[in-house]
């Protein structure tokens, strides 16, 4: 059910990928995203597929676990696929009543579909192998050069930490509320769209109330411990780049280089 959503979840482990510095992984993810947008054709996707498969293999996160996290975005991917397939004009392949599938449409649909899947898989590998707390530490550290131009890096990182921290809590809360309303005979699965949307009200109202309550409690708890953002905090576990990270950067450069070369020369 709702708890099955693994998007943004951490999968505990101690693989080479898990042990990389969070900053390396964040940069690697950005590199991967850029590369996916640079990829010009299916050969490029094949290269990226190998890279992604290697990352997944090394990380030892079970494929089943990763794919389970894809379920909620499956419909978005499917929708993009279908829209692209029917909406793009060009050479007609199949005609279904007033709908036509064109060669260009099919090509774009598959291409965009792959792009979306790769983006989501790549981004989820970051969160699957990095503890949320390390992730936000990494983001803060990467953003800190911008502090000079007034970017509140610490506050942003704190907001992100809190948001990530409370995703499971809110999912749990949703699960609890859904079950309580189901016990009162609620039915979320049948009926037309309007009926189903109405059926969500008994979940959403209590959920918002809980969310505000949790936020208020947390704010109170932080304030009563005199939390202040920018007070030259030091870290209990300072982040340090090592030889693994250097290797990571080399591999990244290699991958990005090949992808760009492929775009230019092929």
């Amino acid at each position, binding site marked *: 059910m709702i708890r099955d959503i693994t998007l943004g979840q951490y*999968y505990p482990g101690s693989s080479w990928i898990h042990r990389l510095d969070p900053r390396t992984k964040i940069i690697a993810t950005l590199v991967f995203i850029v590369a996916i947008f640079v990829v010009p054709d299916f050969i490029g996707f094949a290269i990226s597929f190998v890279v992604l498969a290697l990352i997944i293999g090394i990380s030892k996160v079970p494929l089943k676990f990763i794919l389970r996290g894809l379920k909620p975005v499956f419909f978005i991917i499917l929708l993009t696929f279908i829209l692209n397939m029917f909406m793009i004009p060009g050479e007609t392949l199949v005609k279904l009543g007033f709908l036509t599938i064109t060669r260009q449409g099919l090509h774009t649909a598959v291409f965009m579909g792959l792009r979306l899947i790769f983006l989501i898989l790549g981004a989820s590998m970051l969160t699957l192998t990095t503890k949320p707390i390390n992730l936000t530490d990494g983001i803060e550290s990467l953003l800190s050069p911008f502090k000079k131009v007034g970017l509140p890096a610490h506050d942003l990182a704190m907001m992100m930490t809190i948001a990530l921290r409370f995703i499971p809590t809110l999912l749990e809360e949703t699960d*609890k509320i859904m079950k309580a309303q189901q*016990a*009162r*005979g609620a*039915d979320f699965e049948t009926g037309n769209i309007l009926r189903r949307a109405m059926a969500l009200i*008994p979940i959403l109202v209590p959920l918002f109330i809980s969310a505000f309550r949790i936020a208020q409690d947390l704010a109170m708890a932080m304030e009563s411990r005199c939390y202040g953002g920018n007070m030259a905090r030091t870290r209990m576990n300072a982040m340090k780049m090592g030889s693994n990270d250097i290797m990571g950067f080399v591999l990244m450069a290699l991958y990005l280089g090949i992808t760009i070369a492929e775009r230019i020369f092929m």
Partner: protein
Amino acid sequence: MSIEVKNLSYIYNEGFPGESLALDDVSFAALDGELVGIIGHTGSGKSTLLQQLNGLLRPKSGTIIVGDTNITDSKTSMLSVRRTIGLVFQYPEYQLFEETVAKDVAYGPGNLGLEQEEIDARVREAIEMVGLDYDEVKNKSPFELSGGQKRRVAIAGVIAMKPQVLILDEPTAGLNPKAHDDILQMVETIHQKEGNIVILVSHNMDDIAAMADRVLVMDHGKLIMNGSPQEVFARREELASIGLAVPAATEILGRLKDAGLNVEADCLTLDEAADRIAAALK
């Protein structure tokens, strides 16, 4: 109406990290009109068991037969299961969502597809049964009530569905002593009036001893004791070894017995305990 649970097992997150065997081969039966108390340390699987009884979780293996329907059968309609079995969750007040108390209590009966007149009658009856004044609270927002009142409204929301089996998961958690007693009094009243099966989870042994006809003891997903309160609470040492206390009266007599006083420790109320001590000292 009776409930028969056979060899029930359930695993959370099977095959994923955080996998936990929450129910391990649980079997028991609850007879018509019984009030069954369930006790167990935190995390022992009580709430998981209750959710199975109502079809919210499907067991990994085992069967649950209520009356003559097998509710673990995937062909059984869940709406009919929920009509028969009412489940009040731990801290049920978070389920309130409507603008007024009356509308909120009407949500469950409405889902059962009853006539408007029948719904209105049941709402009034349920609100009064939980000890609130219908005319006073019906148009109030549930969010402007006190904690104890919210709890009552939430329980009324389930009672209004007139379940033949009423299950309550720690209905008194987090309430002050007065509200605690009121809620339990209310459960007794409903039980007597409706003659239904009531299953009650509680951490308070005195409440269980005073109310239950049968006590089930859970430990690490297993059902380890099943008997009358006298039988179960007589096993004071065993209960202590899994982190559970016994009613105050049983505890006092048990200790006096250990200290050499000639008394039997299998009693549950303080009055009874006083009589026994007096008799032993004569």
